């Protein structure tokens, strides 16, 4: 009996660990590079399996982005960084409006790009970070079946709810950085409300074009 228990104990510990593994990984503590790897793999698998997306069904892509990607993106931080100095003087309502409209614009435009993804593979590039880091860079390459690899990097911040993406780099161009000057221009011309209006107008325009 003793012997049996001993064996059992040896047996139980690894099994418990294996079973607990995925649970732990699901929680906020998943390493940022693993998070990005699993997220992109999942999105690419879904796109490959879904004929409607390949045929350019934007609503379907948007649903995919809403369900799979958005929980891991901090749009408020993204918007705050892109708005820069103007963010400080913005009221909570203005901040909410900016975040909402910027998110709509990004999801709409980049969903279009996602629907062009076909037989791409994601390769992780070397990841360097200390366990204590709260702000990291995760670098990947998207490799199409023919043609050059596309550099696709992410900046993530560790928050209470886990790691969140707050900036994306396509082919060396950071998204937030690329909106800064435009946003600053809109704010200096028409204030924060001017920027909100420009974003709202653009979103309406894109929505109308899609209906037509």
């Amino acid at each position, binding site marked *: 009996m003793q012997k049996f228990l001993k064996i059992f104990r040896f047996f139980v510990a690894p099994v418990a660990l294996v079973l607990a593994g995925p649970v732990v990984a699901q929680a906020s503590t998943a390493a940022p590079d693993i998070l990005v790897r699993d997220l992109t793999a999942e999105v690419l698998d879904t796109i490959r399996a879904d004929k409607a997306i390949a045929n350019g069904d934007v609503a379907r892509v948007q649903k995919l982005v809403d369900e799979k990607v958005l929980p891991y993106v901090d749009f408020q931080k993204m918007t705050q960084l892109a708005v820069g100095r103007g963010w400080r003087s913005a009221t909570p309502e203005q901040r909410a409006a900016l975040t909402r409209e910027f998110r709509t614009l990004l999801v709409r435009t980049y969903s279009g790009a996602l629907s062009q993804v076909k037989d791409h593979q994601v390769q992780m590039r070397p990841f360097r970070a200390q366990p204590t880091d709260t702000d990291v860079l995760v670098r990947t390459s998207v490799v199409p079946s023919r043609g050059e690899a596309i550099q696709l990097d992410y900046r993530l911040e560790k928050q209470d709810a886990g790691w969140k993406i707050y900036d994306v780099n396509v082919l060396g161009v950071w998204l937030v950085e690329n909106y800064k000057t435009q*946003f600053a221009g809109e704010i200096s011309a028409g204030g924060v409300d001017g920027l909100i209006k420009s974003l709202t107008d653009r979103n309406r325009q894109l929505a109308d074009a899609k209906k037509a």
Partner: protein
Amino acid sequence: MSVARLTLRGCIAFAVLLLACGCATLPPNAGQDPRDPWEKYNRNMFAFNDGFDEAITKPLAELYVKLPQGMRTCLSNAFSNLRGPSTAINNFFQSKPVEALSDVGRFAVNTTVGIVGCFDVATGWGMEAHREDFGQTLGVWGFEPGPYLVMPIFGPSSVRDAIGIYGVEPFLDLNFYIDYPGIEYTVLGLRVVNERAELLPADRLVREAALDRYSFIRDGYLQRRRSLVYDGNPPRVIDPDDEDDSDADAKVPASAGGLSSGPAQTKPPGQAADGAVKPADAKPDETGK
């Protein structure tokens, strides 16, 4: 570059300048961005280029994409192959002998086994494609991009890249050494159309995503070139505007602790403080790509 081509380019540039004057709407703060002191000229040239593109290059590119995919891939590979020696030389100039050797091998394999570059055999054999030009080499040697410059027809550039790409690069490009003018210019023309065709999806995205296409493209160009100089892994630029927000989530990574430039610095919003880089990754990553 032949005298004929130079003259042609000169004429085009002149005609363009005449045509371009006053076509673009200028924002009130045009020219105040330190990276773009010639913004008024640039916006006019940008507007002219747009017109030229709509009328000539884009329609040709849209015709070109009707060719079978296999044929386009073959042409695209062959055109990249013409840049092979230039890439190798530039990697050598940038003190990257391993990459340079790989580029030489790549050119040799693709020119022979790959039939004048039509098939990219070398990538499968472990010699991956690099993208180098003399503008990047000047950057690696420490030259700043200087003012942003929109070239007639060819579009976004900077003073450094104009010297590197339009001044030096033609002599490193095999196209220049094709001795039959008929073939030389046909290949050159096809290359421009091929490149434009490859930009069609990106063009669509920019038109949707940008509030101001001119500055979206300018900022994208400058970021992309800086990234290329560091082979895809440039040191992070930190905007002092991002740090002093009272929001708890505007944290700055611990490794950026050595920042000397405070928010007191007077510069237009959105301007990256080039001095404020993290010293830890100031060296381009050799393992990148």
